[in-house]
């Protein structure tokens, strides 16, 4: 039964990781750059929401909107300063001069957001209005927190909406074209700069929702959120296979499951050790990640 309980817990944390990984992948898939400030934007959004929560009686829905809006604003700032100026016309090199510069610049903005957040709310932990203030449900011998159900449902809805947007809208077609081949997409008349900016906003919005759900489910906010979101999101993204959205979702859930099971059997430090070991082994043996094992739906071009 422990196994089932751990699996349930793993799926819950996996849902959050999946959302984070999707946000990272949207940016990486289109821009071919890793946005190291992504977790920090989420931190910023959540902190603004916490600040608002402290000073008003705003309900959860309002706070969610505030978090998302702040995160999108932060993301727009990052996009303008770090990614728009370093757009490469040729190729998809991440390690080319402009690619490294964009990533390091995004790291610099990560530091900015962290300091701004601690200036705004200096303490190490703040309470956040909880999603649900009751006891966990009992499903037979298993216990399931209501917040977990909400998190899971929200993730599923969000991913479904994202899928619809990507598959059925013109914007979605543009995004998928950009992921496939930025040069060709530009030649086809797709307004590349505008689509990049919108993708950034979309990824930030998803991140904002993910951050909000996580702190609301826990009922507390700490400044570690920035580093946590960045690490887990990138970890899940790489496990799933860089540049693949279905891979990101799978990677997120796999990471969650792996963590909860290894924590149970081996303790909390080994939990992180196993996750990193998995990533390192995957990268050494099969950099394509989970996605390279999936024959359908993956992007045709490798993301290196």
């Amino acid at each position, binding site marked *: 039964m422990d196994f089932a309980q751990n699996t349930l817990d793993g799926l819950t944390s996996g849902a959050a990781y999946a959302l984070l990984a999707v946000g990272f992948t949207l940016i990486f898939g289109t821009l071919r750059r*890793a946005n190291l400030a992504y977790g920090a934007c989420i931190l910023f959004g959540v902190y603004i929401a916490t600040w608002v929560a402290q000073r008003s009686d705003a309900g959860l829905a309002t706070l969610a909107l505030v978090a998302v809006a702040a995160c999108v604003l932060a993301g727009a700032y990052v996009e303008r300063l770090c990614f728009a100026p370093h757009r490469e016309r040729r190729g998809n090199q991440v390690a080319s001069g402009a690619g490294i510069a964009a990533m390091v610049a995004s790291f*610099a903005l990560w*530091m900015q957001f962290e300091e701004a957040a601690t200036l705004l709310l200096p303490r190490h932990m703040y309470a956040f209005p909880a999603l649900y203030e009751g006891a966990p449900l009992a499903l037979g011998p298993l216990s399931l927190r209501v917040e977990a159900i909400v998190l899971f449902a929200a993730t599923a809805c969000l991913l479904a909406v994202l899928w619809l947007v990507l598959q059925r809208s013109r914007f979605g077609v543009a995004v998928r074209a950009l992921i496939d081949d930025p040069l060709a997409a530009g030649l086809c008349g797709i307004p590349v700069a505008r689509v990049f900016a919108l993708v950034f906003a979309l990824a930030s919005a998803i991140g904002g929702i993910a951050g909000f759900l996580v702190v609301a489910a826990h009922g507390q906010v700490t400044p570690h959120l920035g580093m946590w979101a960045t690490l887990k999101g990138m970890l899940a993204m790489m496990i799933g296979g860089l540049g693949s959205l279905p891979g990101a979702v799978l990677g997120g859930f796999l990471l969650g499951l792996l963590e909860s099971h290894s924590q149970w059997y081996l303790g909390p430090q080994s939990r992180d050790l196993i996750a990193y*070991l998995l990533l390192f082994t995957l990268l050494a043996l099969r950099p394509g990640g989970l996605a390279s094992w999936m024959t359908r739906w993956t992007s045709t071009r490798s993301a290196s």
Partner: protein
Amino acid sequence: MDEYTIGVLTNIGLFSFIALSAYLLLLAGELSFGQQAFFGIGAYVGGIGTALLGWPLPLAALAAMAAGAAAQTLVGLPTLRLRGLYFAMATLAAAEMIRIVLELIHFQRVVDGALVGPDGTQGFRGIRWIFEHGIEPAAFLALVWSLLACVVLLLAWIERSRLGAVVRMVGEDPELAAVLGIDVGRLKLGVAAVAGALAALGGVLFAHVNTYVEPRNFDIMLGVHSLAYALIGGLGTVFGPLLGVALDIGALESTRLFHGYRMIVFGGVVALILVWRPRGLLDERAVDWLGRRLWRRTP
């Protein structure tokens, strides 16, 4: 010189070692988020050398450098094929694994009446070689900077040689380099070994000036910061990383110019500088321009 200035200058020196190690890898075209782990390995191996095994500092430092070089080569071997973000994430994963392993090591012995040695997350206390040998802070500062000067001179000399050109070529375009007959894999591993040794040297010095290290000292923040310093200072010359470190730790932090807002200011400065100069302040173009200015009069 007052103790504060000595402390700041020592920190600049120590940070320069790890910034230089990130710089070397950047030259070879590799983005490493993991140099902090080799800094940490240097600290622990050096600390064990002097505090637990009673070795003199030079011997411990050599052992630390060897350990750092070996570790970075070991990490470099399976990741040889990787590029760009893949390589970066692999180094990050390896570095975090090493750091977690340091958190799990408990190995203490009673030395001189006190318990000394790595104690997991509680860290490694009692690395007091420089206190036991009466080395003043100013003397240690001189030691750090003379070692740094040797390293910088050596690297500057290599940069002007064929090896330097080959490393930069591998960084710019590995396929072309391979076509020209350069063994890209062996070169990258060589650069990795040197980078690991450099980071470890910084680590062993850091451990001794602080007398206490813990695994948390070597987390991702340290690594990505040193990478940022290397890039912002400039990839055109070995003095670039030093400039980057001096800018943040020297100018901004220590003058307490923007007390409380330093990261916001420095972060903005970094992003703006990178827009203007993606390869740093002292990038190849700037170095070339400076070189032509300085040696204009020479026939």
